Each structure stands twice: as structure tokens, then as C-alpha cells.
């Protein structure tokens, strides 16, 4: 009956090792502030480790003092010595440590704001997706949605705004979070270093589908980025038949540049099929998922403004999806 103490200890250490493994594995991945892929995130990760080391040192000193007081120092000390102890370790030392950490933290502020980036990207948060506009030389505006691409090694300035409630943009692998406030434009400069795919999220509760408001961030080699941006700037070259798309009112909310669809309520769909995810990071952008999304969006994303189109005749839905498939 029951495990022997030895066995229990073995199980316990196995559990610890396994638990530590899970913890450490959580430090990497596409959405981790501890696995920085950009300069700002690296500064913040460094700040975190310095703060953690400082907190660990304070903890060790306090626990050490408690152990010393309980185990070794059995005689009471004088009132005056007690007062001095409180003054030094309760007031002076914490003030000095806090001052050090505060100066170290404040030092980062100008670093995180500086630079005159060549690339400006306007991001507007709307319940529950991201309108993304690349502003190029000569104020050329290239609108896309729900997928951010950045060139590695170059600074990009994100100007952040919201049209409804307060949102917050956070790409932990690339930098700190910044609130997106209606009526105010905030600014965030990112300098991604390592190409790869990361994940950005809305970090301020904004409504029922807040947890479903994310976006993939693709950091690309600069040449690839430039080529991609040129392709994005081009109008759509739809291969399918746009009749069903337009007849069912899709163009009332969505723009497909170069066609009669010029709505601005929902995301720009000009190069929809070229994006990696669907519905603001909701699911991979596959033909099957696109069908589910169009037919049943209200169930997939509660609170979304787009109505579900599951009531359409299958042939009609097929035509719309074929048209979307051709928007590369």
C-alpha cells in the first residue's frame, strides 16, 4: 500500500525536472519577451534579468537575515542598535537599491524612443482586428490588414491609433507594449534583428473577442521585404468571378483594390490569399478555414461586425471562396 518514501522522492524529482523543462520551453517560441528578436526586446529582456537578479539578491538578504535572527542571534540587541538596523536595512538600503533600479530603467526610455526610421507603418486597432498601412516615400499608402511584415536590421516606426476602445499592441519578441487610444496617436519604434515569424497580440481587454485579436509578424531580409511591399502596392489581379462577391455585399465593407469593392469597414482583402493567417491570427489561412470563416464567422469570433454567410447557396459560397483564393 502506498509508495515508499524513496520512490516518492524519485517521483518528486522527476516531476520537478519535467516541470522545469516545461517552464524553460515556455521561454522560447514566437511570443516570448525572454527570447528577443529585436533591439528593443533585447533591452527589455536585459532589464528583466537585472531586475530579477536585484530582487533575488534582496530576497536572499532578507531571508538570510531572518534565518540568522532565528538560528544564530539568540540575544536581544539594544534599542539603539535595533533602531539603527531598521534605519539602515529598512530605509537607506531599499532607497539606494530602488534608486539604482529606477535610474537603470529610466536610462532605457530615450533608447526606446529615438531614431528617425525610414519606414512608417500606421496601425489602427478596431474591434477585433488590425488595419495596417505602410507609408512609403512621397506619402504612398499601402493598406493591408492583420499581418505585419518588417525588414530585419532596419528601424520601423509604428504609429498606433484606435477607432473604438482602448487596445494595446504587443509583440513580445520585438519590443514592449504600447497602448492604442482613441483620439491619440502613440508611437513605437521597433528594430527587429532576427528574421522569423513572431506573434503580436492585443494586450488590453477590448471586448468579447479580445483573446482572438492577434496577428503574425514576419521579419524578413530587407530585400525580400522590399519585393513584398512592391507586390502589396499592386492592385489585385483576381482570377475568379467577382460577381458573387459583389452581389452579396462583400464589397460594402471590404476593399479589393482595382475592383468595384471599395468598402472600408472591414479589412482590406486585396492580397488576402497571400497572408498566413485568417481573422486576425485566428486560424491558418487555408481554403477550408476560409470557408468556415465566411460561413460561420459569428461563432468563430464572438462580437465581430461581419455577419455569417452560411445561408448562401453552396454554389454562391463556392464562387466567393474561389474569388478570395485568387486574391494573391
Amino acid at each position: 500500500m502506498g509508495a515508499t518514501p524513496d520512490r516518492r522522492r524519485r517521483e518528486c524529482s522527476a516531476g520537478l525536472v519535467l516541470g522545469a523543462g516545461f517552464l524553460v520551453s515556455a521561454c522560447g517560441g514566437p511570443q516570448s519577451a525572454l527570447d528577443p528578436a529585436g533591439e528593443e526586446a533585447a533591452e527589455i529582456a536585459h532589464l528583466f534579468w537585472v531586475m530579477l537578479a536585484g530582487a533575488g539578491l534582496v530576497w536572499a538578504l532578507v531571508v538570510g537575515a531572518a534565518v540568522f535572527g532565528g538560528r544564530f542571534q539568540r540575544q536581544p540587541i539594544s534599542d539603539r542598535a535595533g533602531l539603527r538596523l531598521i534605519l539602515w536595512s529598512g530605509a537607506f538600503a531599499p532607497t539606494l537599491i530602488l534608486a539604482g533600479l529606477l535610474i537603470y530603467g529610466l536610462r532605457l526610455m530615450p533608447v526606446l524612443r529615438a531614431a528617425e526610421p525610414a519606414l512608417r507603418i500606421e496601425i489602427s486597432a478596431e474591434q477585433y482586428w488590425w488595419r495596417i498601412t505602410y507609408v512609403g516615400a512621397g506619402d504612398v499608402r499601402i493598406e493591408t490588414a492583420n499581418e505585419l511584415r518588417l525588414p530585419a536590421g532596419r528601424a520601423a516606426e509604428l504609429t498606433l491609433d484606435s477607432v473604438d476602445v482602448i487596445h494595446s499592441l504587443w509583440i513580445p519578441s520585438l519590443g514592449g507594449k504600447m497602448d492604442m487610444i482613441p483620439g491619440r496617436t502613440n508611437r513605437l519604434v521597433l528594430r527587429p534583428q532576427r528574421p522569423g515569424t513572431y506573434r503580436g497580440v492585443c494586450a488590453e481587454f477590448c471586448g468579447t473577442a479580445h483573446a482572438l485579436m492577434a496577428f503574425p509578424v514576419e521579419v524578413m531580409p530587407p530585400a525580400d521585404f522590399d519585393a513584398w511591399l512592391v507586390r502589396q502596392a499592386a492592385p489585385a489581379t483576381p482570377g475568379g468571378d467577382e460577381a458573387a462577391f459583389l452581389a452579396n455585399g462583400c464589397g460594402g465593407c471590404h476593399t479589393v483594390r482595382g475592383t468595384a469593392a471599395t468598402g472600408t469597414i472591414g479589412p482590406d482583402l486585396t492580397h488576402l490569399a497571400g497572408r498566413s493567417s485568417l481573422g486576425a491570427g485566428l486560424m491558418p489561412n487555408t481554403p477550408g478555414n476560409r470557408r468556415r470563416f465566411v460561413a460561420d464567422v459569428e461563432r468563430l469570433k464572438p462580437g465581430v461586425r461581419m455577419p455569417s454567410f452560411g445561408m448562401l447557396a453552396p454554389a454562391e459560397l463556392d464562387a466567393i471562396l474561389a474569388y478570395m483564393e485568387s486574391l494573391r
Partner: protein
Amino acid sequence: MLFRRDTANMWTLITPPTVWALHFLFCYVAAAIVCAKDPSWLPGLRLAIAGATLLALGLILLAGLQAHRHWGFGDDLPPHDEATDEDRQHFLGFATLLLVGLSAVAVLFGALPALFITECVR
């Protein structure tokens, strides 16, 4: 005058935190106005914050010297909890001294951002 009193009272007690509050308001309100109206005044504002910080620390120091006197120059250790006039004075003096320390640190911490932030950001 709050700074040349023979005895401590509630007013001398709250002098240091009041200086801290006024300094804090000055730093943040002035920075908000300058950045909204004309960011080119920012270097002047940072000097003004440095001046306000020195002034605030000076006033807090004066309050501290007075509190030290009201405390009886530390002749008597806390807790000053006897129901006597002397203990009341010592208690108020000592409490003011603690507030002097807190307020001085808070004034310095409140002014630190002006040391690092060199531009208004949109």
C-alpha cells in the same frame, strides 16, 4: 512661518509632503504644457525642474532641521507615547523627520525622468 516655530503641530508635520506634492505637480503639469504648446522650451523646462528640485530639497532640509529640534535632537528614543507635552512634541518631530526623508527621496525620484528624457514625443 512654518519654518521658525517653537513647537511642532500638524502644519509643520505636513510641510515636507506638501513641498513634495507641489514639486511633483510643477514637474508634470509644466512638462505637459510645454510639450503640448512648444517642445522647443524643453531644455529650459529641464533647467527649471532642476531649480525646483533644489528649492524643494532646500525647503525639506529646513523642515528637517526644525523637526530635529522639535524631536529634542534625538535625546529621547521612540516610541514617544507618554501623554505629556514633551512626548507629543518629540513624536511630532520624529514623525516629521521620517516624512522629511520620504519627501526628499520622492522629490529626487520625481525629478529623475527630466534627467533622461530629452524630447517630447508625439
